[in-house]
C-alpha cells in the first residue's frame, strides 16, 4: 500500500525524522491560508500516488500567499498519469545547501533490507546507478541484527560526508531503518534528503510503501487507504477478495491462479488482442465470487468480449461449469464469453456447459483457441 507524501512524512516524523512544516490543502483558499501561516517562500505540491509529478507541473515554489492560492488552483484537479490531484501539500521553505538520496527497500535476491544512498539527490536513482555508480552507496542489512552502527559509518564515510551533515544523515538513517521495520514497509524513500545551510538534515519528500500482507498489524496505516483515489473497479475487486488490475484493451480476462491469468493475458496479446484487465478469481468454484468477478470485468465499458480461463485442479471441471452457469444465470451479461475449461474432469465440464449454455457463451479446449476466439469476438464487437 502506497502512502501519500504527507502521510509518509507524518510517519517518518513519528520515528524522529525531520521534515519541513507543511499543511494539506484541498482548496486554493486553504493553500493561501497555509502559505500565510508559514510566511516567505512555500512549495505547493500535488499529492498523488505516482511519480513524475514534478515534470508534470505538480510542484510549484512561490513567494507570496496569493501565488500559493493560484498554484493550488492550477494543481488541484490536474491529472497526473491518470491520477486526479485532490490535495496539495503546502510546505514552508528552507535554505538548502545540498540534496541527497536515501532509501531502504527489500532486496529479493539477498532477502535483506537494502539501503541506497547518494549525494546526488532529487534525481532518478536508477539514472545515478547507471551513470555515476561511484556516487551510490549500497548496504545490505542483516534483518536479525538490525542496522549496526558500523553500517551507518560505512554509509557516511563511504559517501564522503563530514561534520553536521554526516551526523544528521547517520541519525536519519537509523530512524529510517526503525520506521522501515516497525511499519513493515517494503519501501521508504527520501528523495531528496537535504542538508540546510544551518546544518540540519531534512526529508523534503517521502515515498512509503507498506507491505499489504502486514496491514493486519498496522491498523493505523491500513486506515490511510484512500478509497476515493482508487480505481472504482479495482476498489470493488479488492472488497470482493479478487486480484484485479485494470488495463487498456477490450478483452476482459478472468481465470483461476495468478500465473495462469498472467499467461492468459500473454496468449491473448499473442493472438493480436488487447487485454482489458487481469482478474484472478482464486481457487474454488464459488458462483457468487465468479458472478461478482464477471460483473466487475464487464462494468468496464471498453470490454467487448470476455475470456474465462479455468484449469481444474483441486476444483474439478464439472463443479466449475456448474458454478459458472449459476453465475451467468444471475448476471445480465450479453457480451460474448469464451470459456476454456481444462484439467481434472474438463470433459465433463465442457459437456455440462454445451448442454446448458446461454447463446453468448462459447467453449474452447485450449488456451490458444480460446484466446483466438475471444480476440475475434472483441474485434467483431468493435464493428
Amino acid at each position, binding site marked *: 500500500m502506497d502512502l501519500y507524501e504527507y502521510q509518509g512524512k507524518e510517519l517518518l516524523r513519528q520515528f524522529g525524522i525531520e521534515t519541513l512544516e507543511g499543511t494539506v490543502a484541498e482548496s486554493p483558499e486553504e493553500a493561501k491560508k497555509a502559505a500565510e501561516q508559514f510566511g516567505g517562500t512555500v512549495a505547493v505540491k500535488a499529492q498523488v500516488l505516482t511519480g513524475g509529478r514534478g515534470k508534470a507541473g505538480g510542484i510549484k515554489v512561490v513567494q507570496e500567499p496569493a501565488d500559493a492560492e493560484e498554484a493550488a488552483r492550477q494543481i488541484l484537479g490536474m491529472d497526473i498519469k491518470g491520477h486526479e490531484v485532490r490535495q496539495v501539500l503546502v510546505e514552508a521553505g528552507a535554505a538548502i545547501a545540498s540534496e541527497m538520496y536515501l532509501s531502504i527497500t*527489500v532486496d529479493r535476491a539477498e532477502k535483506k533490507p537494502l539501503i541506497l544512498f547518494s549525494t546526488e539527490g532529487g534525481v532518478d536513482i*536508477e539514472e545515478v546507478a547507471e551513470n555515476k555508480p561511484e556516487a551510490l552507496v549500497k548496504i545490505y542489512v542483516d534483518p536479525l541484527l538490525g542496522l549496526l552502527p558500523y553500517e551507518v559509518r560505512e554509509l557516511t564515510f563511504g559517501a564522503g560526508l563530514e561534520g553536521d551533515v554526516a551526523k544528521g544523515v547517520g541519525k536519519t538513517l537509523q530512524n529510517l531503518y526503525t520506521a522501515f521495520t516497525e511499519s*513493515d514497509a517494503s519501501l521508504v524513500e527520501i528523495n531528496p534528503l537535504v542538508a540546510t545551510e544551518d546544518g540540519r538534515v531534512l526529508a523534503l519528500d517521502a515515498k512509503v510503501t507498506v507491505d499489504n500482507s502486514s496491514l493486519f498489524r498496522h491498523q493505523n496505516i491500513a486506515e490511510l487507504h484512500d478509497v476515493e483515489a482508487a480505481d472504482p473497479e479495482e476498489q470493488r475487486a479488492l472488497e470482493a477478495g479478487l486480484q484485479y488490475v485494470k488495463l487498456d484493451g477490450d478483452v476482459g480476462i478472468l481465470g483461476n491462479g*495468478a*500465473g495462469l491469468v*498472467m499467461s492468459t493475458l500473454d496468449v491473448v496479446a499473442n493472438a493480436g488482442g488487447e487485454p482489458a484487465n487481469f482478474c484472478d478469481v482464486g481457487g474454488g468454484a464459488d458462483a457468487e465470487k465468479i458472478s461478482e468477478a464477471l460483473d466487475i470485468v464487464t462494468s468496464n465499458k471498453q470490454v467487448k468480449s470476455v475470456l474465462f480461463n479455468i484449469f481444474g*485442479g483441486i476444483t474439478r471441471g464439472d463443479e466449475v461449469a456448474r458454478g459458472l452457469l449459476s453465475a451467468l444465470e444471475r448476471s445480465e451479461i450479453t457480451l460474448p464469453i469464451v470459456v476454456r475449461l481444462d484439467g481434472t474432469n474438463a470433459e465433463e465440464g465442457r459437456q455440462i456447459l454445451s448442454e446448458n449454455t446461454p447463446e453468448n457463451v462459447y467453449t474452447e479446449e485450449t488456451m490458444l483457441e480460446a484466446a483466438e476466439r475471444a480476440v475475434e469476438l472483441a474485434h467483431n464487437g468493435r464493428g
Partner: protein
Amino acid sequence: MAILVDNETRLVVQGITGREGKFHTGRMLESGTNVVAGVTPGKGGQEYEGIPIFNTMEEAVKETGANASVIFVPAALCADAIFEALDFDISTVCCITEGVPVHDMMKVTNHMRIKDATLIGPNCPGVLSPGKANVSIMPDSIFTPGNVGVVSRSGTLTYQIVNELTQRGLGQTTAVGIGGDPIIGTDFIEILKQFEEDPETECAVMLGEIGGNAEQNAAEYVQSEMTKPVVAYIAGFTAPEGKTMGHAGAIVSGGESTAEAKSEALRRAGIRAATNPSEVAELVAEALNESS
C-alpha cells in the same frame, strides 16, 4: 528418485484442524502420502483421519519421526510455525499459506542460513513427487511418474503445464512450486541444482514470471553448472509497470523484472524459452529427444 519428498517422507501437517489443513490432508492421504502427524496447539491428543494430533512440533517429531512438514496456519502465525519446524530438524518445510508478511520472511530466510533444511514457499502449491509423496495442494490426478522436473513460481500455471506434459506422455520426477512472494525460502537455483543431481531427472522445466531477477540468476547457474536441458516459460509479458499481478512478488519495477528481459536472459543462457505455455511440453519432448 525424486527431490525433496519421496517414499521416505514422513509428513506432519501444521494447522491440521483448520479448513484448508483438513481438506488438503485428506487429499494428500488419498495420493498415498505418509502423513504421520498433525499439529494444532490445544488439540493435542485428538485425531484426524486416524492421524494423531499434537500440541507442538517437538512432540510430533519425537513421537512419529516426522521429517517433512506442510504449513496451513494463518499468515500471521506462519513465521512462528516455520521456526518451530526448523527447530525440530524438519528437513523439508512447505508453507502453503499466502499473505505472510515480508519482514517475517526476511527473518525466517536469514535464520535458515544456520539450518540444514529446505523451506518451500510461502504462498506456494507445495511439492509433489508422483507416485511417491504429495506434500502440496496440487491435483495428484494430472501427474504421472517420469523424468521431467518442474519448478514454478505459480500454481495453476504449473497444473496447466504438468497436464500437458502428462497428456504428451512426459511424466515427472517432482514438481516444486516455490511460491509467488517477493521473499521465498528457496529460489529456482537451489531446485535446479537438485534436479541436476537427481539421477532420474533428465530435463527441467522452469516456470517464471515478472518481478525480481530470480530467473536471470537461475539462467547464469544453468549456463555455468547444468548439464541437463532446461525448458522455461515466463508469464506476464503484458503486465504494466508497478502493478501487482496477483502474486505479491509479481510486479514489474525496473527493466530487469519484465518477462521480456527474463526470457531474453534465459535464451542467452541456452535455455529453451517458450513464448506461450502450450509450447512447453513440445520443447520438453524436443529436448529429451536431442539428449537421448
